[in-house]
């Protein structure tokens, strides 16, 4: 299975990508997502599952079944959009609370053994050079934390360019 996490409206998304592969699971903004409250419940209360039951509580499990995660996000200050960031914040159940040393830094051990690819497609009309550099560092750091070996990152200043970047969904 592949996952797409995006912050486009459903209309925009289906207009841009009318044909989606059958094995793709789409995570979009239904308006019901709740913020991660930093309770660590997904680690020490209901391991592997978020305690907030809002339809976005099984992100760790979903990621564990994926070969590729594609993120389509507006770029804010070199970060993801709030919705996409919200989904990522709710995904830490893919990891364990325990630590290991990687690149001489501490990072969490993984709960699952699936190896996924990550493709992040940022879009926005006025992404500055600094924001772009920050976003590149952010995605790279995310890959270290989620043990992702292969990743791709793109920036588009319009939805038309975004459409051309996102080719394999």
């Amino acid at each position, binding site marked *: 299975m592949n996952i797409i996490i995006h912050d486009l409206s459903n209309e925009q998304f289906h207009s841009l990508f009318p044909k989606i592969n059958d094995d793709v699971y789409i995570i979009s903004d239904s308006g019901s997502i709740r*913020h*991660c*409250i*930093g309770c660590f419940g997904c680690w020490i209360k209901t391991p592997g599952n978020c305690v907030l039951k809002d339809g976005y509580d099984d992100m760790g499990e979903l990621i564990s079944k994926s070969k590729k995660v594609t993120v389509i996000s507006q770029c804010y*200050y070199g970060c993801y959009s709030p919705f996409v960031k919200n989904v990522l914040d709710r995904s830490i159940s893919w990891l364990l609370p325990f630590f290991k040393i990687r690149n001489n830094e501490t*990072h969490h051990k993984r709960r699952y053994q699936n190896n996924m690819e990550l493709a992040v497609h940022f879009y926005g009309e006025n992404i*500055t050079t600094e924001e772009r550099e920050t976003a590149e560092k*952010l995605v790279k750091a995310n890959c270290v934390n989620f043990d992702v070996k292969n990743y791709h990152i793109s920036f588009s200043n319009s939805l038309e360019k975004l459409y051309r970047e996102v080719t394999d969904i």
Partner: protein
Amino acid sequence: MKICIINGSPKASKSTSELLIEYLLTFIKGKNVVTYNVCRADLSKTQFSQIQNNDVLIFAFPLYIDSLNSQLLRFLIELERRGFSNNNITVYCLINNGFYEGRQNYIAADIMKNWCNAVGLTYGQTLGIGAGEMLTFIKDVPLGHGPNKSIGIALQKLSNNILSLNKGEDLFVSPNWPRFLWKIASSLCFWYPRAKENGLKRKRLKDKVN
């Protein structure tokens, strides 16, 4: 000098950000300081106005997935939308992360710099602190001493810059405590006891959901 501290921790219980704000307040005693937690309640128009009219804005928050949590991010976007008629504000950040290395907060600091550029405010400095969850365990150790030595020294430098509205290079520190001991203690003193409180045995923490 008017100072506004934004607590960007989404935690319902007492957070490390709250503890760090308490520490910082001891260095900036006597100043006109107001604190808001932007993750717990929606702010009123008056409160937004108070945030927009200060000499100093200090953001204290935890690192979430190498950056800012989504709630704080939404708040920053809202602040940009509302704009700042007074651009004479210097922004400082106090970021903590769950990993040992304070250095891992550097991307969040960069995001805050980019936000300052977007809204036209002056970026002052960030202090990024590692091993955040450990700080409550050593809160009785005086700042500047023992495991709180580096944190105390760094907080002093940050507050000196805040009080003089100076810019400074970002500071990244970890408690003065060996990393391997911190790593062992994180399991034995933090994760396992908290799981036990929830009636879970240790091995259950590694459960997979299928």
